[in-house]
Protein backbone atom coordinates (compact mmCIF):
# COMPACT_ATOMS: atom_id res chain seq x y z
CA UNK A 1 0.00 0.00 0.00
CA UNK A 2 2.41 2.71 -1.15
CA UNK A 3 0.17 5.24 -2.80
CA UNK A 4 -3.36 6.02 -1.91
CA UNK A 5 -5.85 8.37 -3.41
CA UNK A 6 -6.56 11.59 -1.62
CA UNK A 7 -10.15 12.48 -0.93
CA UNK A 8 -11.86 15.59 0.32
CA UNK A 9 -14.01 15.80 3.43
CA UNK A 10 -17.42 15.99 1.73
CA UNK A 11 -16.67 12.98 -0.49
CA UNK A 12 -15.56 11.02 2.55
CA UNK A 13 -18.75 11.94 4.33
CA UNK A 14 -20.73 10.47 1.46
CA UNK A 15 -19.06 7.06 1.87
CA UNK A 16 -18.82 7.03 5.63
CA UNK A 17 -22.00 8.95 6.38
CA UNK A 18 -24.35 6.00 6.86
CA UNK A 19 -21.89 4.24 9.15
CA UNK A 20 -21.34 7.41 11.17
CA UNK A 21 -25.08 7.99 11.45
CA UNK A 22 -25.70 4.48 12.69
CA UNK A 23 -22.86 4.61 15.22
CA UNK A 24 -23.85 8.09 16.38
CA UNK A 25 -27.51 7.22 16.65
CA UNK A 26 -27.42 3.82 18.28
CA UNK A 27 -24.05 3.59 20.01
CA UNK A 28 -22.92 7.12 20.90
CA UNK A 29 -26.34 8.51 21.75
CA UNK A 30 -27.21 5.68 24.18
CA UNK A 31 -23.72 6.05 25.63
CA UNK A 32 -24.46 9.73 26.28
CA UNK A 33 -27.87 8.80 27.70
CA UNK A 34 -26.09 6.31 29.92
CA UNK A 35 -23.74 8.98 31.21
CA UNK A 36 -26.67 11.32 31.84
CA UNK A 37 -28.64 8.58 33.59
CA UNK A 38 -25.65 7.78 35.77
CA UNK A 39 -25.69 11.37 37.02
CA UNK A 40 -29.42 11.40 37.76
CA UNK A 41 -31.78 10.23 40.43
CA UNK A 42 -34.72 8.07 39.34
CA UNK A 43 -37.96 6.98 40.91
CA UNK A 44 -38.71 3.27 41.07
CA UNK A 45 -40.85 3.60 37.92
CA UNK A 46 -37.95 5.12 36.00
CA UNK A 47 -38.92 8.79 36.10
CA UNK A 48 -36.06 11.24 36.42
CA UNK A 49 -36.22 13.09 39.71
CA UNK A 50 -33.18 15.35 39.46
CA UNK A 51 -29.41 15.46 39.64
CA UNK A 52 -27.58 12.93 41.67
CA UNK A 53 -24.03 14.15 41.23
CA UNK A 54 -21.71 11.22 41.74
CA UNK A 55 -23.98 9.51 44.24
CA UNK A 56 -24.75 6.63 41.84
CA UNK A 57 -21.08 5.88 41.31
CA UNK A 58 -20.50 6.00 45.06
CA UNK A 59 -23.51 3.73 45.48
CA UNK A 60 -22.08 1.12 43.11
CA UNK A 61 -18.65 1.30 44.71
CA UNK A 62 -20.21 0.98 48.16
CA UNK A 63 -22.35 -2.01 47.18
CA UNK A 64 -21.34 -4.78 49.52
CA UNK A 65 -21.48 -7.35 46.70
CA UNK A 66 -19.10 -5.43 44.43
CA UNK A 67 -15.98 -7.33 45.54
CA UNK A 68 -17.66 -10.68 44.92
CA UNK A 69 -19.03 -9.54 41.58
CA UNK A 70 -15.63 -8.31 40.37
CA UNK A 71 -13.93 -11.52 41.48
CA UNK A 72 -16.61 -13.55 39.71
CA UNK A 73 -16.08 -11.50 36.54
CA UNK A 74 -12.32 -12.05 36.51
CA UNK A 75 -12.68 -15.79 37.20
CA UNK A 76 -15.40 -16.09 34.54
CA UNK A 77 -13.55 -14.23 31.77
CA UNK A 78 -10.09 -15.69 32.40
CA UNK A 79 -11.31 -19.28 32.86
CA UNK A 80 -13.60 -19.27 29.83
CA UNK A 81 -11.17 -17.52 27.48
CA UNK A 82 -8.10 -19.57 28.46
CA UNK A 83 -9.91 -22.93 28.33
CA UNK A 84 -11.63 -22.00 25.07
CA UNK A 85 -8.36 -21.06 23.37
CA UNK A 86 -6.58 -24.23 24.52
CA UNK A 87 -9.36 -26.64 23.52
CA UNK A 88 -9.93 -24.83 20.23
CA UNK A 89 -6.25 -25.05 19.27
CA UNK A 90 -6.44 -28.83 19.57
CA UNK A 91 -9.81 -29.06 17.90
CA UNK A 92 -8.75 -26.89 14.96
CA UNK A 93 -5.70 -29.10 14.46
CA UNK A 94 -8.03 -32.10 14.24
CA UNK A 95 -10.54 -30.40 11.95
CA UNK A 96 -7.84 -29.55 9.40
CA UNK A 97 -6.75 -33.19 9.04
CA UNK A 98 -8.11 -35.07 6.06
CA UNK A 99 -10.53 -37.83 6.97
CA UNK A 100 -13.77 -39.37 5.89
CA UNK A 101 -16.80 -37.43 7.17
CA UNK A 102 -14.89 -34.28 8.07
CA UNK A 103 -17.52 -31.97 6.61
CA UNK A 104 -20.23 -33.44 8.79
CA UNK A 105 -18.05 -33.16 11.90
CA UNK A 106 -17.47 -29.49 11.05
CA UNK A 107 -21.21 -28.89 10.80
CA UNK A 108 -21.76 -30.56 14.16
CA UNK A 109 -19.16 -28.33 15.79
CA UNK A 110 -21.06 -25.29 14.54
CA UNK A 111 -24.30 -26.12 16.35
CA UNK A 112 -23.53 -24.54 19.76
CA UNK A 113 -22.66 -21.31 17.91
CA UNK A 114 -25.82 -21.40 15.82
CA UNK A 115 -28.05 -22.06 18.83
CA UNK A 116 -29.08 -19.02 20.78
CA UNK A 117 -27.27 -18.64 24.08
CA UNK A 118 -30.56 -18.42 25.92
CA UNK A 119 -31.70 -21.74 24.51
CA UNK A 120 -28.41 -23.42 25.36
CA UNK A 121 -28.46 -21.89 28.82
CA UNK A 122 -32.00 -23.09 29.51
CA UNK A 123 -31.09 -26.51 28.19
CA UNK A 124 -28.14 -26.73 30.55
CA UNK A 125 -30.19 -25.51 33.48
CA UNK A 126 -32.24 -28.65 32.93
CA UNK A 127 -29.27 -30.94 32.26
CA UNK A 128 -27.63 -29.69 35.49
CA UNK A 129 -30.82 -30.01 37.49
CA UNK A 130 -30.53 -31.64 40.92
CA UNK A 131 -33.76 -33.59 40.59
CA UNK A 132 -34.31 -34.38 36.94
CA UNK A 133 -30.98 -33.56 35.32
CA UNK A 134 -29.46 -35.93 32.78
CA UNK A 135 -25.97 -35.21 34.07
CA UNK A 136 -26.70 -36.38 37.60
CA UNK A 137 -28.50 -39.43 36.23
CA UNK A 138 -25.44 -40.37 34.18
CA UNK A 139 -23.00 -39.71 37.04
CA UNK A 140 -25.14 -41.76 39.44
CA UNK A 141 -25.53 -44.52 36.89
CA UNK A 142 -21.75 -44.74 36.41
CA UNK A 143 -21.28 -44.65 40.20
CA UNK A 144 -19.06 -41.58 39.94
CA UNK A 145 -21.10 -40.00 42.71
CA UNK A 146 -23.38 -41.49 45.36
CA UNK A 147 -25.68 -38.54 45.80
CA UNK A 148 -26.69 -36.04 43.11
CA UNK A 149 -24.65 -32.83 42.85
CA UNK A 150 -26.53 -29.53 43.11
CA UNK A 151 -24.64 -27.97 40.21
CA UNK A 152 -26.63 -24.74 40.19
CA UNK A 153 -27.30 -24.40 43.91
CA UNK A 154 -24.07 -25.48 45.57
CA UNK A 155 -21.71 -22.50 45.88
CA UNK A 156 -18.68 -24.59 44.95
CA UNK A 157 -20.26 -25.90 41.77
CA UNK A 158 -22.06 -22.92 40.21
CA UNK A 159 -19.05 -21.15 38.74
CA UNK A 160 -17.42 -24.29 37.27
CA UNK A 161 -20.81 -25.30 35.85
CA UNK A 162 -21.28 -21.90 34.22
CA UNK A 163 -17.68 -21.85 32.93
CA UNK A 164 -18.22 -25.25 31.30
CA UNK A 165 -21.19 -23.89 29.36
CA UNK A 166 -19.28 -20.70 28.53
CA UNK A 167 -16.41 -22.71 27.06
CA UNK A 168 -18.79 -25.04 25.24
CA UNK A 169 -20.48 -22.18 23.36
CA UNK A 170 -17.25 -20.23 22.70
CA UNK A 171 -15.31 -23.12 21.16
CA UNK A 172 -17.03 -23.24 17.73
CA UNK A 173 -16.29 -19.65 16.77
CA UNK A 174 -12.75 -19.82 18.15
CA UNK A 175 -11.98 -23.15 16.50
CA UNK A 176 -13.16 -21.70 13.20
CA UNK A 177 -10.80 -18.74 13.50
CA UNK A 178 -7.97 -21.21 14.10
CA UNK A 179 -9.04 -23.50 11.24
CA UNK A 180 -8.87 -20.46 8.97
CA UNK A 181 -5.46 -19.55 10.41
CA UNK A 182 -4.14 -23.08 9.86
CA UNK A 183 -5.35 -23.11 6.27
CA UNK A 184 -3.39 -19.94 5.65
CA UNK A 185 -0.08 -21.63 6.57
CA UNK A 186 1.59 -22.99 3.40
CA UNK A 187 2.21 -26.73 3.42
CA UNK A 188 5.86 -26.34 2.36
CA UNK A 189 6.69 -25.00 5.80
CA UNK A 190 5.91 -28.39 7.33
CA UNK A 191 7.68 -30.20 4.53
CA UNK A 192 10.88 -28.38 5.43
CA UNK A 193 10.46 -29.15 9.12
CA UNK A 194 9.93 -32.84 8.39
CA UNK A 195 13.06 -33.04 6.28
CA UNK A 196 14.95 -31.39 9.14
CA UNK A 197 13.72 -34.24 11.34
CA UNK A 198 11.63 -32.18 13.74
CA UNK A 199 9.17 -34.13 15.88
CA UNK A 200 5.48 -33.29 15.33
CA UNK A 201 5.25 -31.58 18.73
CA UNK A 202 8.40 -29.54 18.08
CA UNK A 203 7.17 -28.58 14.62
CA UNK A 204 3.87 -27.45 16.09
CA UNK A 205 5.48 -25.42 18.88
CA UNK A 206 8.18 -23.78 16.76
CA UNK A 207 6.36 -23.36 13.44
CA UNK A 208 2.59 -23.64 13.69
CA UNK A 209 2.08 -21.68 16.90
CA UNK A 210 4.13 -18.61 15.89
CA UNK A 211 2.41 -18.51 12.48
CA UNK A 212 -0.95 -18.84 14.20
CA UNK A 213 -0.21 -15.86 16.45
CA UNK A 214 -2.36 -13.35 14.57
CA UNK A 215 -5.33 -15.74 14.67
CA UNK A 216 -4.77 -16.32 18.39
CA UNK A 217 -4.70 -12.56 18.96
CA UNK A 218 -7.93 -11.98 17.05
CA UNK A 219 -9.67 -14.90 18.75
CA UNK A 220 -8.54 -13.86 22.22
CA UNK A 221 -9.61 -10.23 21.87
CA UNK A 222 -13.02 -11.08 20.41
CA UNK A 223 -13.56 -13.79 23.03
CA UNK A 224 -12.63 -11.43 25.85
CA UNK A 225 -15.23 -8.96 24.59
CA UNK A 226 -17.93 -11.60 24.04
CA UNK A 227 -17.34 -13.48 27.28
CA UNK A 228 -17.16 -10.34 29.38
CA UNK A 229 -20.42 -9.13 27.87
CA UNK A 230 -22.03 -12.55 28.03
CA UNK A 231 -25.38 -12.29 29.72
CA UNK A 232 -27.76 -15.23 29.10
CA UNK A 233 -25.62 -18.03 30.55
CA UNK A 234 -25.07 -16.42 33.93
CA UNK A 235 -28.51 -14.88 34.06
CA UNK A 236 -30.26 -18.19 33.32
CA UNK A 237 -28.12 -20.69 35.22
CA UNK A 238 -27.95 -18.43 38.26
CA UNK A 239 -31.66 -17.59 38.22
CA UNK A 240 -32.64 -19.59 41.30
CA UNK A 241 -30.01 -18.00 43.53
CA UNK A 242 -30.92 -14.77 45.37
CA UNK A 243 -28.54 -11.84 45.70
CA UNK A 244 -25.42 -11.18 43.63
CA UNK A 245 -23.27 -14.05 44.94
CA UNK A 246 -22.62 -15.53 41.51
CA UNK A 247 -23.18 -12.57 39.22
CA UNK A 248 -20.64 -10.93 36.95
CA UNK A 249 -20.60 -7.18 36.42
CA UNK A 250 -22.92 -7.50 33.42
CA UNK A 251 -25.75 -9.36 35.16
CA UNK A 252 -25.14 -7.27 38.30
CA UNK A 253 -25.79 -4.12 36.26
CA UNK A 254 -28.93 -5.54 34.66
CA UNK A 255 -30.37 -6.70 37.95
CA UNK A 256 -29.79 -3.28 39.51
CA UNK A 257 -32.05 -1.64 36.94
CA UNK A 258 -34.66 -4.26 36.20
CA UNK A 259 -34.72 -6.92 38.91
CA UNK A 260 -33.57 -5.50 42.25
CA UNK A 261 -36.07 -4.29 44.81
CA UNK A 262 -35.00 -0.71 44.20
CA UNK A 263 -35.05 -0.80 40.37
CA UNK A 264 -32.31 1.82 40.43
CA UNK A 265 -31.78 3.05 36.87
CA UNK A 266 -29.15 5.59 37.95
CA UNK A 267 -26.94 3.08 39.74
CA UNK A 268 -27.35 0.58 36.94
CA UNK A 269 -26.20 3.22 34.45
CA UNK A 270 -23.18 3.95 36.62
CA UNK A 271 -22.43 0.22 36.76
CA UNK A 272 -22.78 0.11 32.96
CA UNK A 273 -20.14 2.80 32.59
CA UNK A 274 -17.81 0.87 34.87
CA UNK A 275 -18.39 -2.13 32.60
CA UNK A 276 -17.42 -0.26 29.46
CA UNK A 277 -14.32 1.02 31.23
CA UNK A 278 -13.39 -2.44 32.49
CA UNK A 279 -13.50 -4.10 29.09
CA UNK A 280 -11.58 -1.22 27.49
CA UNK A 281 -8.83 -1.51 30.09
CA UNK A 282 -8.75 -5.31 29.82
CA UNK A 283 -8.49 -5.32 26.01
CA UNK A 284 -5.89 -2.55 25.88
CA UNK A 285 -3.86 -4.31 28.57
CA UNK A 286 -4.00 -7.59 26.65
CA UNK A 287 -3.00 -5.92 23.40
CA UNK A 288 -0.11 -4.19 25.20
CA UNK A 289 1.14 -7.44 26.64
CA UNK A 290 0.96 -9.24 23.31
CA UNK A 291 2.49 -6.29 21.42
CA UNK A 292 -0.37 -5.97 18.97
CA UNK A 293 1.07 -2.81 17.41
CA UNK A 294 4.28 -4.50 16.36
CA UNK A 295 2.22 -7.29 14.84
CA UNK A 296 0.13 -4.80 12.89
CA UNK A 297 2.94 -2.82 11.32
Amino acid at each position, binding site marked *: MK*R*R*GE*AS*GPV*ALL*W*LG*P*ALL*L*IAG*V*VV*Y*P*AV*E*LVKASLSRYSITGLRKGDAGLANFRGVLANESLGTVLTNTVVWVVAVVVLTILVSLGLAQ*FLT*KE*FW*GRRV*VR*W*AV*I*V*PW*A*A*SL*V*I*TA*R*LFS*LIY*SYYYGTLN*AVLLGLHVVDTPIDFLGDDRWIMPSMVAVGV*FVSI*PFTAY*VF*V*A*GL*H*AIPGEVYEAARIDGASPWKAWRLITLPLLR*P*AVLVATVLNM*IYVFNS*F*PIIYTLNESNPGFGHDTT*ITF*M*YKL*AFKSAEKDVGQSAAA*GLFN*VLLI*LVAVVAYLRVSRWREEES
Partner: protein
Amino acid sequence: MNGTLSWRRIRPAAMPVIGLGVALAFLWPYLVMLLDAFRPSGDVVTTPPSLLPRVWKWTTFGEVFGDERFRAWLLTSVVVAVASTIIVVLVAVPAAYFTARFRFRGRIAFLFLVLITQMFSPTSLVVGIYREFFSLNLVNTYLALILTNAAFNLAFAVWILHGFFASIPKEVEEAAELDGCGPVTRLRRIMLPLTLPGLVTATIFTFIAAWNEYVVALTLMLDDNKKPLTVGINSYVTGYEQNWDQLFGASIIAIVPVVILFAIIEKHLVGGLTAGSVK
Protein backbone atom coordinates in the same frame (compact mmCIF):
# COMPACT_ATOMS: atom_id res chain seq x y z
CA MET B 1 8.63 -46.65 14.86
CA ASN B 2 6.35 -49.61 15.16
CA GLY B 3 3.71 -47.39 16.75
CA THR B 4 3.78 -44.98 13.82
CA LEU B 5 3.43 -47.78 11.32
CA SER B 6 0.37 -49.30 12.93
CA TRP B 7 -1.19 -45.81 13.36
CA ARG B 8 -0.83 -45.35 9.64
CA ARG B 9 -2.70 -48.60 9.09
CA ILE B 10 -5.59 -47.87 11.41
CA ARG B 11 -5.76 -44.12 10.67
CA PRO B 12 -8.37 -44.32 7.89
CA ALA B 13 -10.71 -46.12 10.27
CA ALA B 14 -9.71 -44.38 13.48
CA MET B 15 -10.06 -40.77 12.33
CA PRO B 16 -13.76 -40.97 11.41
CA VAL B 17 -14.43 -42.67 14.76
CA ILE B 18 -12.67 -39.86 16.63
CA GLY B 19 -14.59 -37.46 14.40
CA LEU B 20 -17.85 -39.05 15.47
CA GLY B 21 -16.78 -38.61 19.09
CA VAL B 22 -16.00 -34.93 18.49
CA ALA B 23 -19.33 -34.41 16.73
CA LEU B 24 -21.20 -36.03 19.60
CA ALA B 25 -19.31 -33.92 22.13
CA PHE B 26 -20.86 -30.84 20.55
CA LEU B 27 -24.22 -32.33 19.69
CA TRP B 28 -25.19 -34.25 22.82
CA PRO B 29 -26.97 -31.40 24.64
CA TYR B 30 -29.03 -30.75 21.53
CA LEU B 31 -29.81 -34.45 21.14
CA VAL B 32 -31.06 -34.41 24.72
CA MET B 33 -33.13 -31.40 23.69
CA LEU B 34 -34.55 -33.21 20.67
CA LEU B 35 -35.54 -36.17 22.86
CA ASP B 36 -37.12 -33.76 25.34
CA ALA B 37 -39.19 -32.26 22.55
CA PHE B 38 -40.66 -35.71 21.90
CA ARG B 39 -41.99 -36.38 25.39
CA PRO B 40 -44.81 -34.84 27.39
CA SER B 41 -43.58 -31.90 29.44
CA GLY B 42 -44.23 -33.76 32.69
CA ASP B 43 -41.85 -36.50 31.60
CA VAL B 44 -39.00 -33.99 31.28
CA VAL B 45 -39.21 -33.06 34.94
CA THR B 46 -39.73 -36.46 36.54
CA THR B 47 -37.45 -38.12 39.08
CA PRO B 48 -35.58 -40.24 38.28
CA PRO B 49 -34.86 -38.87 34.80
CA SER B 50 -34.85 -41.27 31.89
CA LEU B 51 -32.70 -40.78 28.85
CA LEU B 52 -35.35 -41.89 26.39
CA PRO B 53 -38.94 -40.65 26.61
CA ARG B 54 -41.11 -42.94 28.74
CA VAL B 55 -43.99 -41.85 26.54
CA TRP B 56 -43.37 -40.64 23.00
CA LYS B 57 -45.25 -37.53 22.00
CA TRP B 58 -45.14 -36.73 18.30
CA THR B 59 -47.38 -33.68 18.27
CA THR B 60 -44.98 -31.11 19.76
CA PHE B 61 -43.80 -29.60 16.49
CA GLY B 62 -47.34 -29.40 15.19
CA GLU B 63 -48.41 -27.63 18.36
CA VAL B 64 -45.56 -25.17 18.17
CA PHE B 65 -46.21 -24.30 14.52
CA GLY B 66 -49.91 -24.08 15.29
CA ASP B 67 -49.23 -21.56 18.05
CA GLU B 68 -50.02 -18.06 16.84
CA ARG B 69 -47.54 -16.55 19.30
CA PHE B 70 -44.74 -18.75 17.97
CA ARG B 71 -45.41 -17.68 14.40
CA ALA B 72 -45.31 -14.04 15.49
CA TRP B 73 -41.96 -14.54 17.27
CA LEU B 74 -40.54 -16.36 14.25
CA LEU B 75 -41.64 -13.49 12.03
CA THR B 76 -39.94 -10.96 14.30
CA SER B 77 -36.71 -12.97 14.33
CA VAL B 78 -36.66 -13.34 10.55
CA VAL B 79 -37.51 -9.69 9.86
CA VAL B 80 -35.03 -8.34 12.40
CA ALA B 81 -32.14 -10.64 11.46
CA VAL B 82 -32.57 -10.18 7.70
CA ALA B 83 -33.06 -6.42 7.88
CA SER B 84 -30.12 -5.85 10.24
CA THR B 85 -27.87 -7.96 8.05
CA ILE B 86 -28.83 -6.05 4.90
CA ILE B 87 -28.24 -2.72 6.63
CA VAL B 88 -24.86 -3.80 7.98
CA VAL B 89 -23.65 -4.92 4.55
CA LEU B 90 -24.94 -1.81 2.78
CA VAL B 91 -23.37 0.51 5.35
CA ALA B 92 -20.13 -1.36 6.07
CA VAL B 93 -19.04 -2.03 2.48
CA PRO B 94 -18.66 1.63 1.39
CA ALA B 95 -17.08 2.65 4.69
CA ALA B 96 -14.59 -0.22 4.64
CA TYR B 97 -13.72 0.28 0.97
CA PHE B 98 -13.25 4.01 1.29
CA THR B 99 -11.04 3.82 4.37
CA ALA B 100 -8.96 1.09 2.76
CA ARG B 101 -8.40 2.97 -0.50
CA PHE B 102 -8.39 6.70 0.22
CA ARG B 103 -6.58 9.06 2.53
CA PHE B 104 -8.63 11.83 4.04
CA ARG B 105 -8.85 13.85 7.20
CA GLY B 106 -10.46 11.89 10.01
CA ARG B 107 -9.62 8.48 8.54
CA ILE B 108 -7.72 7.32 11.60
CA ALA B 109 -10.36 8.81 13.88
CA PHE B 110 -13.05 6.85 12.06
CA LEU B 111 -11.19 3.55 12.28
CA PHE B 112 -10.54 4.22 15.95
CA LEU B 113 -14.22 4.91 16.53
CA VAL B 114 -15.06 1.58 14.89
CA LEU B 115 -12.53 -0.21 17.10
CA ILE B 116 -14.08 1.32 20.23
CA THR B 117 -17.60 0.35 19.12
CA GLN B 118 -16.43 -3.24 18.76
CA MET B 119 -15.87 -3.33 22.51
CA PHE B 120 -19.30 -2.04 23.36
CA SER B 121 -22.07 -4.49 23.69
CA PRO B 122 -25.74 -3.63 23.66
CA THR B 123 -25.82 -5.23 27.10
CA SER B 124 -23.57 -2.69 28.78
CA LEU B 125 -25.48 0.15 27.12
CA VAL B 126 -28.92 -1.35 27.58
CA VAL B 127 -30.12 1.31 29.98
CA GLY B 128 -29.10 4.05 27.55
CA ILE B 129 -30.66 2.20 24.60
CA TYR B 130 -33.90 1.75 26.48
CA ARG B 131 -34.04 5.45 27.39
CA GLU B 132 -33.30 6.50 23.81
CA PHE B 133 -36.00 4.39 22.19
CA PHE B 134 -38.41 5.19 24.99
CA SER B 135 -38.01 8.91 24.32
CA LEU B 136 -38.31 8.31 20.55
CA ASN B 137 -41.47 6.31 21.18
CA LEU B 138 -39.93 3.29 19.44
CA VAL B 139 -40.28 0.75 22.23
CA ASN B 140 -42.02 -2.37 20.89
CA THR B 141 -41.07 -1.69 17.26
CA TYR B 142 -39.04 -3.83 14.85
CA LEU B 143 -37.18 -0.68 13.84
CA ALA B 144 -35.61 -0.27 17.29
CA LEU B 145 -34.30 -3.84 17.28
CA ILE B 146 -33.12 -3.65 13.67
CA LEU B 147 -31.18 -0.43 14.24
CA THR B 148 -29.62 -1.73 17.45
CA ASN B 149 -28.51 -5.00 15.88
CA ALA B 150 -27.18 -3.23 12.81
CA ALA B 151 -25.21 -0.66 14.81
CA PHE B 152 -23.57 -3.10 17.16
CA ASN B 153 -22.51 -5.50 14.41
CA LEU B 154 -21.21 -2.79 12.12
CA ALA B 155 -17.78 -2.65 13.75
CA PHE B 156 -16.93 -6.28 13.07
CA ALA B 157 -18.11 -6.00 9.46
CA VAL B 158 -16.13 -2.81 8.77
CA TRP B 159 -13.09 -4.29 10.47
CA ILE B 160 -13.05 -7.53 8.52
CA LEU B 161 -13.98 -5.92 5.16
CA HIS B 162 -11.38 -3.19 5.61
CA GLY B 163 -8.72 -5.89 5.98
CA PHE B 164 -9.95 -7.59 2.82
CA PHE B 165 -10.05 -4.48 0.67
CA ALA B 166 -6.63 -3.37 1.90
CA SER B 167 -5.13 -6.78 1.09
CA ILE B 168 -5.97 -6.45 -2.62
CA PRO B 169 -3.20 -4.72 -4.57
CA LYS B 170 -4.11 -1.29 -5.85
CA GLU B 171 -2.90 -2.23 -9.35
CA VAL B 172 -5.95 -4.46 -9.73
CA GLU B 173 -8.09 -1.38 -9.77
CA GLU B 174 -5.74 0.92 -11.66
CA ALA B 175 -6.45 -0.55 -15.07
CA ALA B 176 -10.16 -0.03 -14.58
CA GLU B 177 -9.49 3.50 -13.38
CA LEU B 178 -7.63 4.26 -16.62
CA ASP B 179 -10.64 2.93 -18.51
CA GLY B 180 -12.65 5.61 -16.78
CA CYS B 181 -14.44 3.53 -14.14
CA GLY B 182 -15.39 5.50 -11.04
CA PRO B 183 -14.92 4.17 -7.51
CA VAL B 184 -18.50 2.87 -7.27
CA THR B 185 -18.13 0.77 -10.42
CA ARG B 186 -14.70 -0.47 -9.35
CA LEU B 187 -16.07 -1.47 -5.97
CA ARG B 188 -19.00 -3.32 -7.50
CA ARG B 189 -17.36 -4.93 -10.49
CA ILE B 190 -13.85 -5.66 -9.24
CA MET B 191 -13.47 -5.44 -5.49
CA LEU B 192 -16.63 -7.13 -4.25
CA PRO B 193 -16.21 -10.31 -6.30
CA LEU B 194 -12.61 -10.55 -5.07
CA THR B 195 -13.57 -10.12 -1.43
CA LEU B 196 -16.55 -12.45 -1.40
CA PRO B 197 -15.27 -14.49 1.59
CA GLY B 198 -15.09 -11.32 3.64
CA LEU B 199 -18.61 -10.39 2.66
CA VAL B 200 -19.88 -13.86 3.53
CA THR B 201 -18.13 -13.76 6.89
CA ALA B 202 -19.58 -10.37 7.77
CA THR B 203 -23.03 -11.54 6.66
CA ILE B 204 -23.12 -14.74 8.68
CA PHE B 205 -21.71 -13.08 11.79
CA THR B 206 -24.28 -10.33 11.71
CA PHE B 207 -27.10 -12.73 10.96
CA ILE B 208 -26.26 -15.06 13.84
CA ALA B 209 -25.69 -12.19 16.26
CA ALA B 210 -29.02 -10.60 15.33
CA TRP B 211 -30.87 -13.91 15.30
CA ASN B 212 -29.62 -14.74 18.79
CA GLU B 213 -29.68 -11.26 20.36
CA TYR B 214 -31.40 -11.37 23.70
CA VAL B 215 -30.90 -8.53 26.15
CA VAL B 216 -32.08 -5.62 24.04
CA ALA B 217 -35.07 -7.57 22.79
CA LEU B 218 -35.89 -8.60 26.36
CA THR B 219 -35.85 -4.96 27.40
CA LEU B 220 -37.43 -3.26 24.38
CA MET B 221 -40.05 -5.75 23.20
CA LEU B 222 -42.62 -5.86 25.97
CA ASP B 223 -45.52 -6.63 23.65
CA ASP B 224 -45.78 -10.44 23.50
CA ASN B 225 -46.44 -10.74 19.78
CA LYS B 226 -43.51 -8.42 18.90
CA LYS B 227 -40.91 -10.51 20.70
CA PRO B 228 -38.27 -12.42 18.74
CA LEU B 229 -37.87 -16.18 19.25
CA THR B 230 -35.06 -15.91 21.78
CA VAL B 231 -37.23 -13.95 24.17
CA GLY B 232 -40.64 -15.29 23.25
CA ILE B 233 -40.04 -19.00 23.67
CA ASN B 234 -39.14 -18.49 27.30
CA SER B 235 -42.80 -18.01 28.04
CA TYR B 236 -43.33 -21.72 27.34
CA VAL B 237 -41.71 -22.38 30.69
CA THR B 238 -42.47 -19.91 33.44
CA GLY B 239 -43.56 -20.08 37.04
CA TYR B 240 -47.14 -20.51 35.83
CA GLU B 241 -46.94 -23.01 32.99
CA GLN B 242 -44.27 -25.52 32.10
CA ASN B 243 -44.26 -26.74 28.55
CA TRP B 244 -40.70 -27.97 28.26
CA ASP B 245 -41.60 -30.01 25.17
CA GLN B 246 -42.77 -26.89 23.34
CA LEU B 247 -39.82 -24.82 24.55
CA PHE B 248 -37.39 -27.37 23.14
CA GLY B 249 -39.38 -28.03 19.99
CA ALA B 250 -39.38 -24.29 19.29
CA SER B 251 -35.65 -24.14 20.06
CA ILE B 252 -34.89 -26.85 17.51
CA ILE B 253 -36.86 -24.92 14.93
CA ALA B 254 -34.82 -21.82 15.78
CA ILE B 255 -31.48 -23.61 15.34
CA VAL B 256 -32.09 -25.47 12.09
CA PRO B 257 -32.13 -22.50 9.66
CA VAL B 258 -28.83 -21.17 11.03
CA VAL B 259 -27.08 -24.52 10.77
CA ILE B 260 -28.30 -24.96 7.19
CA LEU B 261 -27.16 -21.45 6.28
CA PHE B 262 -23.82 -22.21 7.86
CA ALA B 263 -23.39 -25.51 6.05
CA ILE B 264 -24.05 -23.80 2.72
CA ILE B 265 -21.49 -21.05 3.14
CA GLU B 266 -18.92 -22.82 5.31
CA LYS B 267 -16.35 -23.05 2.54
CA HIS B 268 -16.28 -19.31 2.01
CA LEU B 269 -16.25 -18.65 5.73
CA VAL B 270 -13.03 -20.49 6.41
CA GLY B 271 -11.23 -18.37 3.84
CA GLY B 272 -12.87 -15.27 5.22
CA LEU B 273 -12.01 -15.46 8.87
CA THR B 274 -8.33 -14.70 8.58
CA ALA B 275 -7.60 -13.51 5.07
CA GLY B 276 -8.77 -10.09 6.15
CA SER B 277 -7.30 -9.87 9.60
CA VAL B 278 -4.04 -11.64 8.92
CA LYS B 279 -2.27 -9.55 6.38
